[in-house]
C-alpha cells in the first residue's frame, strides 16, 4: 500500500497545534544562562570551536589547573573574546586563579553534560526512566563508552549491555501499565529498550572488509539478543558513520534471520535519511522484513543522521563524493519520502520517526492518518536533553514517544556530548531556528 503525499495545509495545521503545545518546561534561571551561552557561542565560529574543544578535553585534564591551561590556550586562538572570557584569561596569570578557573570550568562542563546524559549507570537512571514513563514517555537507553579498540573492551561493553538489559527489565517491571506505550495495532511493544553500538561490540570494524566486523560482533550480539528475549526487552542497533554502515546492516539482518531469533526478541535498525543511498537501504530492509517470517516487525528508526560533518570532511580528505546530501533541505525531503515508505511497509516494519524537526513530525502524523493508521501506529523518538519540549508536547497529544537516553560517565560520554553540542549550535538546525523565534509558516514550510 503506497502512502500518498499529504497536503501542506494539513501539515501546517498539525504543526501549529504541536507548536502551541510546546511549552518550555522549566525555564529557570540556570537554563536561561545555558541557552544564552549556547546562543553566544553558536554565533561566533571561533568561540564555538574553542568551547567544543574545551568540553572535549575537560575529562582528560589532570587537574583544575591543567583544565584552566587548556581554556587559556583555546581562548588564545579566539579573536573576538567577550569580556567575561578576557577576564578568565587574566585569571590564568596566577596559580590560584588557574585553580579557581579550572574548577569553575569543570563544574560548567559537568552541568552541560547532565543536560544530555541521564545518569552514570542504568541503575542510577531508574528514577528518571520511571518518571518519564509516568509522563507517557518510553525510552531507549544508550550506554556511552570509550571507543572499543581491544577485544577486552568489546567484551566489557557487551557485558554492560547484558547487565543493562536485566536492569532495565527490572526497572520497568515496577512501572504501571501505560497502554499507549506498550502496544500498537501490530502487537505488543517491549517496555525495556536498549540501543547498542556495533563499534562497541568489535574492534574489527573495517570499511573495506565488512565480513570481519560482522563475524566478530555477531559473537557478542547473539548473547545480547538471547538476553533481551529472556527479559522481553527490545534491542536496537544504532547506525554510526558510513564506514561501518554495511557492517551494521549485514550484521543485523544476518543475526535476526537466524532460526533461533525467529520468535524474538523485538529488534530494530536505523535508517539515516541524509545518506544518498538510504532509499536503497530502505528497500533492502523492507524486503528482508517481508521475507523474514519473524514474529515481531522490524523496528526501523528513521533519523536524519548525526555524522554529517564527519562524512563531508572525510570525503573531502579522500577526494570522494560525500555519501550524504549536500543541502539540509534534500535530507528533509528524503526524510519525508522515507517516512511514507516505512509507513507503507507495515505490518512487517514498525516505523519510528526520530527527529526534532516539527515539520518532519507533523508530516509523519498526517501521512500516518492518510494511510489509515491509528495515531499510536507511528512512534516518535527524540534525544533526551534536546527534544524535551517536543516529547512532552507529543505525549500530551497522545502520541507514542520514546526518548533516547544516554547513560554513562563524562569521560566516556564526551564524543556524544560534542556531537549534541554541534547539533545544538548548528546554524541550520531546526532547534536553532525555533529558538530564534521564526514564524510557524517558515518552520513548517515544505523543505
Amino acid at each position: 500500500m503506497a502512502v500518498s503525499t499529504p497536503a501542506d495545509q494539513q501539515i501546517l495545521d498539525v504543526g501549529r497545534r504541536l507548536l502551541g503545545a510546546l511549552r518550555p518546561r522549566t525555564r529557570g534561571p540556570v537554563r536561561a544562562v545555558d541557552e544564552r551561552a549556547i546562543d553566544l557561542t553558536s554565533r561566533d565560529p571561533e568561540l564555538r570551536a574553542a568551547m567544543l574543544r574545551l568540553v572535549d578535553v575537560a575529562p582528560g585534564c589532570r587537574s583544575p589547573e591543567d583544565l584552566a591551561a587548556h581554556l587559556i590556550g583555546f581562548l588564545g586562538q579566539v579573536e573576538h573574546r567577550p569580556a567575561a572570557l578576557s577576564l578568565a584569561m587574566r585569571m590564568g596569570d596566577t596559580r590560584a586563579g588557574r585553580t579557581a578557573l579550572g574548577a569553575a570550568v569543570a563544574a560548567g562542563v559537568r552541568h552541560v553534560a547532565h543536560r544530555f546524559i541521564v545518569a552514570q549507570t542504568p541503575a542510577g537512571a531508574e528514577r528518571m526512566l520511571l518518571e518519564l514513563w509516568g509522563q507517557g514517555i518510553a525510552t531507549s537507553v544508550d550506554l556511552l563508552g570509550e571507543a572499543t579498540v581491544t577485544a577486552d573492551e568489546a567484551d566489557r561493553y557487551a557485558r554492560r549491555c547484558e547487565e543493562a538489559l536485566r536492569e532495565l527489565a527490572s526497572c520497568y517491571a515496577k512501572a504501571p501499565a501505560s497502554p499507549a506505550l506498550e502496544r500498537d495495532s501490530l502487537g505488543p511493544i517491549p517496555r525495556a529498550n536498549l540501543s547498542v553500538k556495533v563499534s562497541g561490540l568489535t574492534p574489527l570494524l573495517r570499511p573495506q572488509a565488512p565480513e570481519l566486523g560482522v563475524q566478530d560482533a555477531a559473537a557478542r550480539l547473539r548473547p545480547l539478543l538471547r538476553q533481551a528475549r529472556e527479559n522481553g526487552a527490545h534491542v536496537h542497533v544504532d547506525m554510526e558513520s558510513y564506514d561501518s554502515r554495511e557492517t551494521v546492516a549485514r550484521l543485523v539482518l544476518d543475526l535476526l534471520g537466524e532460526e533461533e531469533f525467529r520468535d524474538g526478541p523485538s529488534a530494530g535498525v536505523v535508517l539515516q535519511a541524509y545518506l544518498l543511498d538510504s532509499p536503497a537501504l530502505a528497500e533492502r530492509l523492507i524486503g528482508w522484513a517481508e521475507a523474514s517470517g519473524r514474529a515481531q516487525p522490524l523496528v526501523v528508526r528513521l533519523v536524519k543522521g548525526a555524522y554529517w560533518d564527519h562524512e563531508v570532511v572525510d570525503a573531502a580528505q579522500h577526494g570522494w563524493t560525500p555519501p550524504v546530501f549536500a543541502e539540509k533541505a534534500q535530507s528533509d525531503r528524503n526524510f519525508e519520502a522515507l517516512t511514507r515508505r516505512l509507513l507503507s511497509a507495515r505490518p512487517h516494519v514498525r516505523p519510528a520517526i526520530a527527529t526534532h524537526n516539527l515539520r518532519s513530525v507533523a508530516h509523519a502524523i498526517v501521512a500516518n492518518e492518510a494511510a489509515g493508521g491509528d495515531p499510536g501506529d507511528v512512534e516518535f523518538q527524540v534525544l533526551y536533553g534536546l527534544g524535551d519540549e517536543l516529547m512532552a508536547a507529543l505525549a500530551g497529544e497522545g502520541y507514542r514517544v520514546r526518548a533516547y537516553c544516554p547513560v554513562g560517565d563524562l569521560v566516556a560520554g564526551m564524543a556524544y556530548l560534542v556531537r549534541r553540542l554541534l547539533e545544538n549550535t548548528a546554524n541550520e538546525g531546526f532547534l536553532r531556528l525555533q529558538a530564534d523565534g521564526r514564524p510557524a509558516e517558515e518552520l513548517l514550510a515544505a523543505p
Partner: protein
Amino acid sequence: MTDRETDPEPPLPFANEPLLELRREEVRESLLAAAGVLAERLPLRVPELISEERREGEDLVSSDPGEPALTVALAPIAGEAEVSRAIEAAAAYAPRWAAAPAPARAAALKAAAAHMRARREQLAALAVRECAKPWGEADADVAEAIDYLEYYARAALELTERTTLDVPGERNTMRWAARGVCAVIAPWNFPLAIPCGMLAAALATGNAAILKPAEQSPACGAAVVEALRAGGVPAAAIGLLHGEAEAGAALVSDPRVQTIAFTGSAEVGQAIIAAAAEVAEGQRDIKRVVSEMGGKNCIIVDSDADLDEAVPAIVRSAFAFAGQKCSAASRVLVHESIAGPAVERLAGAIATLQVGQAGSFATDVPPLIDAEAQQRVERYLRTGCAQGRLAAQSRGPLPAQGWFARPSLLTALPEDSALLHEEIFGPLLTVESVSGVQEALARVQRLPFALTGGLFCRNPRTVELVAARSPVGNLYVNRAITGAMVGRQPFGGNRLSGTGVKAGGPGYLLQFVDSHVLSENVTRHGLVV
C-alpha cells in the same frame, strides 16, 4: 626554464588524485578482477630499456612476498656495459629534451598521469603482488604516483624566468636550466610512487633520466617507465636498468651523471653521497644528491591525549604495511600519568591485528618484503625480548608461507637498546614512559634521525612548543604519522634522514636544475635604452 612560451590553457590547480573508495563493494570487486587478470599473466617479463633497445632476461627474479615460490617478474641484470650505454644514450639526448618547451614536457607528464589513471586497478594489483602492499596502501601508491606527475608538471611551468632586484640601467633576471642526466635509485616500499616522483621531477625540468628500481620490484618500476613513455616522454630521455647494488653503484659513480635522486636506507644513502663527492678525471660537475633516508619516528602522547583516537592512529602508523615505511611509527613516548592505560590499550589493539596476505581486504599486516627483512625483524625482536618486556603480539596463526613477522609491542627497554635507536623497518613498536613533553622532546632530540614525528595533545600551547622544538621534517598532531600527500604534506626529513628537500612540495624541482643569473647593462651613453 629558458623558453618563454606559455601554455595556451593554464592547467587546473593541482588536486590530489582521489583514493579508491574501498568501502564500496563494487570497487573491491573491480580490484579483485584486476588481480585475477594479473595472476594469469605471471611471470611478467620485464625489459631493460635503453633508448629504443629492449632486452629481456631472467637473471633477476621478483617473487610474491606472501608466496615466495611464485615468480612475479623476470628481468635482465644490467652489467657495466649496459649501464655505460644507458648513460651515453641519456647524455646524448639530454640537450634535446632540455630544449623542448616546458609545456610540452609538462604535457607528457600529464599524459603519463592519464595513462596510469586509466590503469588504477592493474597497477594496484601489481604492487599487491610484487611488494605485498595491502589494497588500500597499494591504491594510495598509485594515486601518489599520479599526484607527482600532475604536481611537478605544474611546478615546472612555474619555474620560469624571474626578475631579481633591478636598478636603473641594469636588467637582472634569474633562469633555470636542466642539469643533464639524472640517475634515479628507488626503493620497493612505494614501488610506483617514489620512482615516479623522482623521475617526474627530473623529466619535468628537462633532464634525461635512468631508473634503477629496487631489485624486489622491477615490474612496478617498469610500469612507471612504460607510463612515462606512453605519455610522450621520448624513449631516449628515459631508460630503465635492473640489478642490485652493483648496477646502482655503477650509475652513481659515472662521471656523466649530474644528479642522483635516491630514496632508501641511511647506509646506502650515505654511501651514495660519499661516492658522489668523488670527482673523476674529466668530470665537469659536482654531482648533486637528493637523498631520502630512514627514520626513527617517535610519537609523543601527552597526558591530555584522547586515547580513543591515539591508540588506533598509533597502531596504524606502526603496523600498516608491516611498518615498512620510512615514516612509520617506531617509538611511543607517553606521559607517565596515562602510560598504564596507553600500554594496555595498545597491547589489546595489537592483539587484534589481522596478519595475512596483502590480497585480502581484511589484512592489517602483510608479510615483509623478503627473507632478509624477516630475519632482521626477528633479530630485533629477540634482542627486545631479552632486554625488555614483550607486552603484546598479534594472535592467531601466521600463514604457512610468506615472510611474515608478528606485530609486537615492547616496553621496559634500557635507554641504550638498539630498538630505541636503529631503524627496524618492520612491525615492532616500543613504548617508553616519560615525565612529560619536555623529557620526550629531549629523547627525540638525541636521535640522529629526524623524519616524521607525532604528537597527541589537546593543549594549543604544547602543540606550539613541540612544533618549535622538534627537529623532524614532518610533524603530525592528533593523527597518524604516515600517509603524506603530495602538495598537502611535502615530505622529507632532516638530520641523517635526508638532504632536507621536500618531495611533493615547493622547492623540490630546484634540486634538478642549475640557476643562471643574467645581468645586462641597458645604458648607452648614459641613457637607459
